[in-house]
């Protein structure tokens, strides 16, 4: 194979080989977190489509690949958003890309948030830190057909006011009928008028009807652990709680073995799980 031809049909079925997407824009959400907007309309497996909660493997030329949740609107798959925390070489490379640059893209992979099951139900979304990113697509989907769902509560915790993602949208969602967004930060300053404290505190301010609510949770492992405990304390059964989990991923398609969590492959069985599928595993240390 020495031919550097444009990708052929055959490659699309090679899930290990990226397609190429064009960088449209980079939006800095905070000091160290940015949203990479990719144009997928020129991609050869276009039209690209995804379900809220799924992720892509994004490849920065020569540097490497990283699994990144899709954070944009599923109804607009032509412009694909990935909100990325700049921490290492791959994410730094991605952060330096300019409009028109190409990145490798494999995906979408993994399971999705329960959009259909949510119809007619109240919805409680709890996010911590960059965990709001994988939840944003489902929020877009919910508000797009707002009338299909009951009360929507979005609880969001971040480290400090400067670390809050999507502030404009949070305010917009809060103004929607029967929708409430409550934000808290771990560390406030005197200019911060909102809540200070961990995200679990916010449950004191809302009423959950445990019989009609579906909860979706994403954030750091510790935050999720306490949040699902709080939800259960408030009467939600594990069948009604959904979590999005994280592990080291290399392939995204269940072949590399890295993301195993007991019998689960986070990449293909997850990342979104119904809590009862994984709860017992979460109780074991270092699994």
């Amino acid at each position, binding site marked *: 194979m020495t031919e550097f031809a444009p990708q052929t049909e055959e490659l699309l079925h090679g899930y290990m080989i990226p397609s190429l997407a064009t960088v449209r824009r980079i939006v800095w959400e905070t000091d160290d977190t940015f949203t990479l907007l990719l144009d997928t309309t020129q991609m050869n497996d276009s039209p690209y489509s995804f379900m809220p909660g799924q992720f892509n493997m994004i490849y920065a030329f020569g540097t490497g690949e990283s699994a990144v949740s899709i954070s944009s609107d599923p109804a607009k798959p032509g412009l694909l958003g990935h909100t990325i925390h700049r921490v*290492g070489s791959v994410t730094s490379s991605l952060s330096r890309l300019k409009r028109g640059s190409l990145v490798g893209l494999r995906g979408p992979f993994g399971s999705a948030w329960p959009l259909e099951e949510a119809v007619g139900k109240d919805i409680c979304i709890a996010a911590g830190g960059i965990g709001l990113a994988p939840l944003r697509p489902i929020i877009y989907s919910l508000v797009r057909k707002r009338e299909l769902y009951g009360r929507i509560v979005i609880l969001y915790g971040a480290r400090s006011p400067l670390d809050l993602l999507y502030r404009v949208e949070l305010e917009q969602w809060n103004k929607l009928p029967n929708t409430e967004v409550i934000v808290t930060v771990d560390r406030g300053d005197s200019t911060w008028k909102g809540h200070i404290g961990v995200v679990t505190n916010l449950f004191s301010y809302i009423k959950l009807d445990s019989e009609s609510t579906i909860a979706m949770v994403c954030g*750091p*492992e510790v935050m999720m652990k306490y949040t699902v405990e709080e939800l259960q304390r408030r009467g939600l059964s594990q069948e009604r709680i959904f979590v999005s989990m994280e592990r080291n991923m290399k392939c995204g398609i269940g072949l590399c073995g890295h993301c195993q969590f007991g019998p689960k492959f986070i990449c293909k069985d997850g990342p979104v799980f119904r809590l009862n599928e994984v709860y017992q595993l979460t109780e074991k240390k270092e699994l």
Partner: protein
Amino acid sequence: MYSRVEELNSRRIPLAKMQAVIIGLRCLFVPHESHIRRQAMCLQSDLTLHIIWHSHCRVWRDKNDFLHIMNNTSKLEASNLQQLLTALQRSGYTTVGPILRDDAIVYDKLDSVNDLPVGWSDEQSPANYRLTKQSGASYFNFNAAPQSWKRFLYPPVRKLFTIRKDGKSLGISNENTDDMKYAFVGVRPCELSAILIQDEVFQAGKYRDDAYSAARRNLFIVAVNCTTAGGTCFCSSMKTGPEAKNNFDISLTEVLRDGRHFFIVKAGTELGASVMDLVETSAASPQEVATADAIMRQTESRITKKMETDGLPALLAENLEHPHWDDVAKRCLTCGNCTMVCPTCFCSTVEDTTDLSGQNAERFRRWDSCFTVDFSKVAGGNFRMSTKSRYRQWLTHKLSSWVDQFGVSGCVGCGRCITWCPVGIDLTAEVQAIRGTETQQRKGD
């Protein structure tokens, strides 16, 4: 099954009717008339097939079992073994098999039978592997080699793609292909099972490894039944050996007795049968077949290591916090040897590189091990820091969660992980330790 054949042997039905039955069943192995005539065993099998079909009773477990019964069994003189290699090579196969190298028997390119480890055997025990010279000129009288066939179908390092920067555009070239046409000569029954297990991993799910599939599609398997039992073997516990029942193209059982040296040959596929047509064979006499069977029974009786598999997946899943994991952790060096020699372990990582110009990049996939620190690293830390958690991951994956994931155990009982563990950790003993105290706890309840 054989007794059934013998029992029915006295009844005869016309050959044409038999063929009709076979074709009617659309079996994969449809011999032409002359072929049937040539093979006595085949006749017997067809007869059984016919009768059983009409009594609506299923005797065969599956297609492969059926094929096994259908197989012709013939005899290949050891002096004609080269003909088999030649036939494979002429059919376009790269023949790979056991050769002597670095004081071990390893699988590599096999040009002629002279490359085989004639007269050599091995001695294996926990953390011990020694070659031993034998009096006879046997070709295959040894046990699992340090490395398995895994390295040919799923190489330790494989380039996945090359990507070239040209101005603003990027061109990707898919390298995850494999056009090798291998014939594996000397696949042990346990290793055959391991290949089937990796088939499940790499090509049975939603996403498959194209290169693996390509190599696998082209693969010709010459299985060799085990005439000797290694000190770390426990295939009979895992129900994978010492005799290959199916899933091979050809199987050989080596008989070296009373000055006679031959192979009992069975063709497992039409392809296998067509290759055997190119090799000089003769009909095996019932005595010769019986001798080979006796050798198989003898091998099985010499397998001393056992693993109790009853309820094993659940046992381990329920004992993730058993104190014995701490005990193993005191001995385990987390070197990862067990994962490298294991014929089913499939974990990998990727490496991305660029050349000096920065214009050309490549991605390689290489074997990884759940025993390394990097394996479980995430941005916030590492979710398997302790040796205990890593050993537990390996063992519970192999024997427990593998069943959840792929419907089969990830262990075939080849014993490599025991032989090649530098401190001689024996998974059968570790499992038994957990089982033992589990049982005590239950009794104590």
